[in-house]
């Protein structure tokens, strides 16, 4: 019964435990790296099988629960993204992780995420989901207690919501494995559809049930994905941890929420939700809600990202915003939208992963995180800068980068689905993305360099390798988006987007990445010829600059280090008065006693109490099932 699946699943956690136990510098890095490479290797090995539409299943019996894990076309896609990001995370951690603790929990969350992606029943799904939360929580806890608490509370809310949802499903169907539940929902959906035509039947799930289920699961997955207004944990948690780990945390863990929405809400109960909740202006209502949540997430998070003063916070808000794009694409409810969402899952993972690796390298080398402390690093860390530039181009959606290909699909999907205002949100979001990546570029890499950064060195080799992998992927999937699109077509078992490796053709639009690349290169060559013809450039120092004719020295501050986008903040001052973060904090203060109790008993960050909590939850679940 041992096939590739358990190896892929459990090698990371085993490696993590080994690294933790043998906490020796050098050894733990090797073990950790091995633990991250093996899943990738095995996932690549099973690609032919999966690509043929076959699936590889592995079942495990734990007490009275049967847990099964499957690698099929769908799950492999998410798993490989997770694994590649996990590999780059491991590469980054070779340089940044200082103890076995980091390796243990990082690799634990690696396993957990793979488990979530491959789980085929609610028990294993929930178990691995909680393992994932736990591991990432422990990673944050080590760095910042307040951030981890915020993350924890919202995760617990999500976990409860999911538990209630699962319980409801179990109570109605008596099954916990996805296959059975899917069948029940499909049948129920048919009946609901028929009942609309006057045919009366007993439904397994009433309309109220479906509204409850939708709310529960949306909350559960929304928390993990960081959807508005449940995103408040994300900026703190993403920034207050090992930045190499954030590569994985923001690149993949947030995708677990997306995966949940995609798998549970859409593939499992989508039809039923559609029939039960009805439509709004021709759009399925539940998708319409998701789309708007996505759109609001994009706009709010991007605006906040623009106004951040901390490098990690900026990227964290940006991650939240990019997940908003994915939700929005799912919300369009068309095959094109789903393709866009799936593609964006990939491209966001690779460009945001790259961003976080660059950040990890910068923070490792400078020890600073706020924008005002940086400047002029491009000369000191040229390769890191080049990789950062690739990430910037990709995130800003400059053709021909992976980020553009996926965004383009989302644009097309949103406009074709006749959701004009939602599409307007993407336009706004993309301009905001431009704005915040420029902030990242300007403050870190350009301008005047503070004197304490004069002896900064280039990033260490493992980090550079990790960046290299993601950078190349960004460019490859950008120039040949067909590689991804072809695979996504297999998921839908029909060609949603036609074309070849370089060309994507949707029903109403085309995008030929290769021709854009070639023309762009040609244009740059033409411009370069002009440049070469002119006089040879003489390098001048940064103080040899226009200051209305006045002489300046290095003692003057020539860079805008703080409040770069202050005019925007002023234009938005009315809206910035309201903050969900502060709202939650105030809510917390209102229920001070309650919070005290929670803090004392549950949320003290103690491993034992957390396990106790898990055990109790499982017990309740089991009892409910028995009842």
């Amino acid at each position: 019964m041992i096939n590739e699946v358990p190896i892929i699943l459990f090698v990371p956690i085993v490696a993590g435990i080994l690294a933790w136990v043998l906490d020796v510098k050098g050894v733990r890095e090797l073990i950790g790296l091995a633990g991250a490479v093996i899943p990738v290797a095995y996932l690549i090995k099973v690609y032919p099988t999966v690509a043929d539409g076959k699936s590889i299943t592995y079942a495990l019996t734990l007490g009275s629960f049967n847990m099964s894990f499957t690698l099929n076309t769908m799950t492999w896609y998410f798993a490989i993204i997770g694994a590649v990001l996990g590999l780059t995370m491991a590469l980054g951690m070779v340089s940044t992780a200082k103890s076995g603790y980091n390796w243990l929990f990082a690799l634990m969350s690696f396993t957990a995420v793979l488990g979530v992606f491959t789980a085929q029943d609610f028990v294993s799904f929930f178990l691995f989901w909680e393992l994932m939360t736990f591991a990432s929580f422990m990673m944050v806890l080590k760095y910042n207690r307040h951030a981890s608490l915020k993350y924890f509370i919202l995760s617990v809310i999500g976990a409860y919501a999911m538990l209630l949802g699962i319980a409801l499903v179990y109570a109605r169907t008596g099954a916990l494995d996805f296959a059975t539940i899917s069948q029940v929902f499909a049948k129920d959906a048919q009946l609901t559809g028929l009942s609309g035509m006057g045919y009366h039947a007993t439904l397994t799930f009433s309309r109220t049930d479906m509204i409850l289920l939708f709310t529960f699961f949306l909350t559960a997955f929304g928390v993990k994905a960081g959807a508005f207004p449940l995103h408040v944990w994300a900026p703190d948690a993403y920034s207050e941890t090992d930045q190499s780990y954030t590569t994985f945390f923001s690149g993949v863990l947030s995708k677990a929420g997306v995966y949940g929405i995609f798998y549970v809400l859409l593939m499992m109960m989508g039809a039923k939700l559609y029939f039960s909740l009805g439509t709004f202006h021709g759009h399925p209502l539940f998708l319409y809600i998701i789309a708007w949540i996505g759109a609001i997430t994009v706009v709010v998070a991007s605006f906040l990202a623009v106004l951040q003063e901390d490098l990690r916070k900026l990227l964290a808000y940006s991650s939240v915003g990019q997940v908003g794009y994915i939700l929005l694409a799912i919300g369009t409810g068309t095959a094109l939208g789903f393709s866009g969402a799936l593609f964006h899952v990939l491209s966001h993972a690779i460009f945001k992963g790259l961003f976080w690796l660059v950040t990890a390298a910068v923070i490792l080398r400078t020890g600073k995180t706020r924008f005002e402390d940086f400047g002029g690093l491009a000369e000191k860390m040229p390769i890191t800068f080049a990789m950062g530039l690739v990430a910037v181009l990709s995130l800003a959606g400059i053709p021909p980068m992976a980020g553009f290909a996926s965004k383009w699909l989302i644009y097309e999907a949103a406009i074709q689905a006749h959701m004009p205002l939602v599409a307007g949100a993407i336009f706004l979001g993309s301009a905001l993305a431009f704005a915040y990546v420029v902030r990242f570029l300007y403050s870190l890499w350009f301008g005047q360099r503070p004197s304490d950064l004069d002896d900064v060195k280039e990033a260490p080799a493992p980090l550079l390798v990790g960046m290299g992998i993601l950078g190349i992927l960004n460019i490859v999937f950008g120039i040949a988006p067909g590689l991804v699109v072809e695979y996504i077509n297999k998921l839908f078992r029909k060609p949603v987007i036609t074309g070849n490796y370089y060309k994507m053709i949707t029903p109403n639009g085309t995008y030929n990445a290769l021709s854009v690349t070639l023309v762009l290169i040609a244009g740059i060559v033409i411009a370069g010829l002009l440049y070469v013809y002119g006089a040879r450039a003489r390098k001048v120092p940064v103080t040899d600059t226009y200051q209305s004719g006045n002489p300046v020295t290095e003692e003057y501050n020539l860079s805008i280090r703080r409040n770069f986008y202050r005019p925007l903040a002023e234009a938005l001052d009315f809206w910035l008065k309201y903050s969900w973060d502060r709202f939650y904090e105030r809510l917390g203060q209102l229920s001070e006693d309650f919070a005290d109790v929670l803090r004392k008993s549950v949320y003290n960050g103690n491993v034992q109490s957390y396990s106790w909590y898990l055990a109790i939850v499982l017990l309740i679940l089991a009892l409910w099932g028995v009842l």
Partner: protein
Amino acid sequence: MNFDVRLVLEVIGMLLYATFMGFIFMGIERKAMARIQRRVGPPIYQPIIDTLKLLGKKESISHGFIYDFGPIFALGASITALLFLPLANFQLFSSNADLIVVAYLLEVPMLGIMLGAMSSGNPYSALGVQRGLLTMVAMQLPYGLAIIAIVQHFGTFKLGEIVALQQVHGWSILVPALLLAMIVFDIVFQAMIGLEPFDIITAPAEISMGPMLEYGGKQAAILFTQHAVQLFAETAFFAILFLGGASNLLELLIKQIAVLFIAIFVASIYPRFTIDQAAKFFWKWPTIIGIIAVLLTV
């Protein structure tokens, strides 16, 4: 993509034509402004002389690699945007990319200029960058809404098809909803080509040319060329979306110049906004009109 001699010739011809006409447009802009200001104004080919002079500077400075790369990238991106437009009877590469791609490509040069300006390390340039990006943020919402209205009305993203449909059913602006979209787009257009009231990016009296400040010599020549190409591409984009495209270059030229003159007239009677006022302005009326336009075309 097979090697196609005719296509290559068309591309080279179009590039030369667009650059030349772009310079002439800049000249028209200066000349018309001068006439409105009751002056004689420079000869219409003056921008070409200016660019030649800048290219002929015997000295050149650099603040680093990106400082040089920024303008080059901007010009390259402008050329790319141009070649993906269906210009009159020349389709060029336009079958390879659609409206969204072109709309994006038209913004890429901005990033190039900003890259270069940022790396010069001058605070005035940095303020220019700040203003440029915020103008873009501000104008993007109405701009997007205008484009969405177009797409929803015609049901296609392909510029070629949009032009063809307009040839059959009449210009876009004959449709009331698209007329609203055109008004929105025209306001945005003012910001796209950097004229008052949205010449906030260069604002000579405030930040002394902003991003262009540290550039001189050949880099400035490249930036001027980029502006010419960009001006041509943007006016053509306007004509394609709202004025029914064109069947030959002369028709296109007439439409482009019409678009340009509207921009010049608006520019010569309005002062400059500050950046936060511009943001508030864009998010008020143009956005409201844009939303009405898209809702009318759903």
